[in-house]
């Protein structure tokens, strides 16, 4: 049983964040009538039958739960509950080890999928029955039976063609109307003409009808399309299921002291909001009361937490780390920082050069050649034989035999298999064309904070600090939620000596202070702990006397060095672009051996840099996670984001990777290149098939039997070739197994 669900790690990152509150749950639910509410929660840790059972039986035991049902494919649980009796759903799920979170609702069922499935079902029914009748015709039924069978086939084919074929006709028509052509144009023409010719032959008791070819062509193509849609949908659902970073609402303090939880879009400028430690700032504003440390990495790219005191401007998307504060909203959600990023993203997207998909480019070259060949064949036969009926029949046979069945499957089948391979390795590909684009990149631009480095810092001078000082520091740090305090706590010596401090107090923005044996100990900002202006760094002090100083460094994402080397060895230029200060960016760049870096870049300038690189003719992969990267992700030729990225960033990126390891990037690039190669091979197979089949058709030797065998044969070869991508005997840089191990440990600990 597979217990390494690809989504597991994204969930871990989520479990550190504040979980869903009852108010948020109520906002996310929708009434079903009779006082019953229904809510859908993402539970990414569900990965086997046992999990289904644990979750459902525990939830159903709760008072107020009407029913619950887990969907293992989407890793979601649907809960029906009574409005007057909100059950402790969230607490229960957390306590049994399946922390839930809310996700962006995409609004009901997937209409396109059900339309594709219905069409495939109808086409499959028609194809199998017509094929059954055709086999008896091919094996030499006498003339009257043949005519009867042709008529039955025609009657089955009409509704099948009208129903299943409309997907292609519609798309072909909309392309033609805009003066363009796509793969569906030659398909539609081929299918429609094959049907028309067959009907004419049937009416005139002709020997050859192509009903089987036209319907089974539709059936094959629909299977390809449905698989393509299912795969992309799965990736989209997985990305949607990741935890939302933006809150759904905020606690508004009324003038009379009331506390109301309001949805985000009802928050007006001038309202006073209470922000607990661990919550994200919902809208732009100013701190009114309280002092705290703020993690701005998502908004600006700065890695070190900033201090916030009354009067400090704070922006939506920042994370309040240590102390509760009250703030005054200065902008509504739609005018906040986040919304500004969305506007920049839209501007960047509209400037993105339109990429024409490989299949469309191939069909644009293919269709005119085929149609011209058919036309010339007809002219030649008319000149040679003077028989119009025979000439037109042969010309249509040329069109039927060249109808791009293999070509239509060549691209989607490879992309379906590639997306599946990526999915298994924790990379979500949201768009088939992204894979084509990724194979062509020549430059990769990385954001620093959250992308090359991960949230928690690393203590680099542990060896220089004595065990005694470390023990004191760890005991003090245990009283603080500041991320660096947690690092110090984790670095304490391996013994169980406890130190009983008294009068412990944490001063927001400075550090922790406590008394022991009459002396005052301070751990935190050097200028405060030592009482000296201008002192820098993080120190431990006793009565203003330095005991130890701590040096931190951003921790690199796992396998970053190897991943960047792999990219560089493929001739890809690597750059860093960050909103953080020069010194921090330079350190990381030096460490990774990257000479090109930009520091202190504003969000708009990040997007502009993408446009500049594109103007130079470069094809850029942008990898980033923050809100400030979102415009650049939208502007880049192709983009990737880690699962921990801000919501808008994840939605803007073409690929989202769920594991921590950076090898996801060279791995995806390699799969993309390999897919590109297989797609070109498939095109070659389709062309080779035509080189053999077209002369036979032009010379007038095609019968419905030959058409059916040739078309199915070429399709099967193309599909089989695509499946080679699953073969594991080629060298890949797989995300190392160690990348998944920490997740499992943590999962067990939960």
């Amino acid at each position, binding site marked *: 049983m597979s217990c390494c669900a690809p989504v597991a790690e994204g969930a871990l990152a989520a479990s550190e964040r504040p979980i869903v509150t009852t108010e948020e749950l109520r906002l996310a639910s929708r009434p079903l009538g009779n006082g019953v509410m229904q809510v859908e929660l993402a539970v990414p840790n569900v990965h086997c*039958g046992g999990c289904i059972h644990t979750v459902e039986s525990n939830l*159903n035991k709760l008072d107020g739960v009407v029913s619950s*049902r887990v969907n293992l494919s989407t890793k979601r649980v649907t809960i029906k509950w009574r409005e007057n009796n909100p059950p402790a759903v969230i607490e229960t799920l957390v306590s049994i080890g399946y922390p839930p979170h809310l996700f962006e609702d995409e609004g009901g069922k997937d209409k396109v999928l059900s339309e594709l499935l219905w069409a495939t079902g109808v086409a499959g029914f028609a194809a199998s*029955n017509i094929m059954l009748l055709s086999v008896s015709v091919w094996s030499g039924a006498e003339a009257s039976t043949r005519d009867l069978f042709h008529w039955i086939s025609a009657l089955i084919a009409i509704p099948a063609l009208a129903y299943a074929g409309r997907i292609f006709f519609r798309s072909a028509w909309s392309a033609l109307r805009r003066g363009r052509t796509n793969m569906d144009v030659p398909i539609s023409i081929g299918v429609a003409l094959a049907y028309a010719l067959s009907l004419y032959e049937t009416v005139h008791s002709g020997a050859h009808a192509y009903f089987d070819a036209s319907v089974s062509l539709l059936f094959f193509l629909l299977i390809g399309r449905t698989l393509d849609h299912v795969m992309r949908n799965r990736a989209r659902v997985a990305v949607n299921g990741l935890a939302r970073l933006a809150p759904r609402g905020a606690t508004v303090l009324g003038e009379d002291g009331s506390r109301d939880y309001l949805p985000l879009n009802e928050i007006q400028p001038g309202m006073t909001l209470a922000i607990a430690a661990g919550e994200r700032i919902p809208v732009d504003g100013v701190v009114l009361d309280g002092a705290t440390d703020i993690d701005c990495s998502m908004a600006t790219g700065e890695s070190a937490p900033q201090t916030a005191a009354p009067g400090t401007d704070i922006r939506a998307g920042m994370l309040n780390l240590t102390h509760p504060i009250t703030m005054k909203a200065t902008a509504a959600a739609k005018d906040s920082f986040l919304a500004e990023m969305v506007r920049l993203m839209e501007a960047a997207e509209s400037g993105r050069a339109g990429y024409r998909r490989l299949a469309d480019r191939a069909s644009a070259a293919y269709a005119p050649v085929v149609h011209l060949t058919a036309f010339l064949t007809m002219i030649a036969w008319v000149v040679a034989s003077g028989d119009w009926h025979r000439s037109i029949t042969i010309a249509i046979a040329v069109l039927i035999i060249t109808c791009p069945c293999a070509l239509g499957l060549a691209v989607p089948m490879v992309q379906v298999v590639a997306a599946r391979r990526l999915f298994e390795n924790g990379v979500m590909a949201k768009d088939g064309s992204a894979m084509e684009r990724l194979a062509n990149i020549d430059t990769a631009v990385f954001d620093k904070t959250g992308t090359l480095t991960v949230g928690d810092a690393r203590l680099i001078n542990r060896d220089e600090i004595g065990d005694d000082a470390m023990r004191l520091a760890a005991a003090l740090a245990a009283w603080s939620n500041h991320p660096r305090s947690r690092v110090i706590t984790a670095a304490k010596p391996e013994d169980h000596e406890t130190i009983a401090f008294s009068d412990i107090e944490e001063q927001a923005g400075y550090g922790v202070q406590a008394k022991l044996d009459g002396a005052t100990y301070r751990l935190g900002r050097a200028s405060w702990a030592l009482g000296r202006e201008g002192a820098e760094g993080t120190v431990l002090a006793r009565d203003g006397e330095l005991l130890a100083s701590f040096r931190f460094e951003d921790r690199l994402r796992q396998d970053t060095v190897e991943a960047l080397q792999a990219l560089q060895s493929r001739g890809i230029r690597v750059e860093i672009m960050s909103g953080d200060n020069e010194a921090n960016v330079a350190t990381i760049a030096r460490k990774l051996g990257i000479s090109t870096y930009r520091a202190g870049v504003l969000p708009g300038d990040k997007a502009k840099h993408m446009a500049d690189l594109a103007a130079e003719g470069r094809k850029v992969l942008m990898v980033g996670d923050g809100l400030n990267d979102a415009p650049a992700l939208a502007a880049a030729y192709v983009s990737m984001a880690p699962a921990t990225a801000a919501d808008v960033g994840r939605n803007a990126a073409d690929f989202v990777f769920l594991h921590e390891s950076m090898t996801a990037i060279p791995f995806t690039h390699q799969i993309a290149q390999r897919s590109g190669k297989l797609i070109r091979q498939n095109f070659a197979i389709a062309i080779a098939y035509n080189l053999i089949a077209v002369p036979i058709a032009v010379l007038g030797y095609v019968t419905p039997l030959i058409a059916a065998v040739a078309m199915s044969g070429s399709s099967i070869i193309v599909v089989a070739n695509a499946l080679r991508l699953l073969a594991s005997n080629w060298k890949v840089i797989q995300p190392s197994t160690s990348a998944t191990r920490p997740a499992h440990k943590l999962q067990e600990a939960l």
Partner: protein
Amino acid sequence: MTNLSVLIPIALCLGALGLVGFLWALRSGQFEDMDGAAERILIDDEEDQSVKK
């Protein structure tokens, strides 16, 4: 010829029955959780049957 007039309608009806069956399964949501359906068969029923629809 007479046997054809019996057998062909039967063949078509059976085919149509299959199609209707597929569409019914589709509509009743049986393709919405393919992974879950594969696992649920392995869950033992207990006295407090949890799977209610």
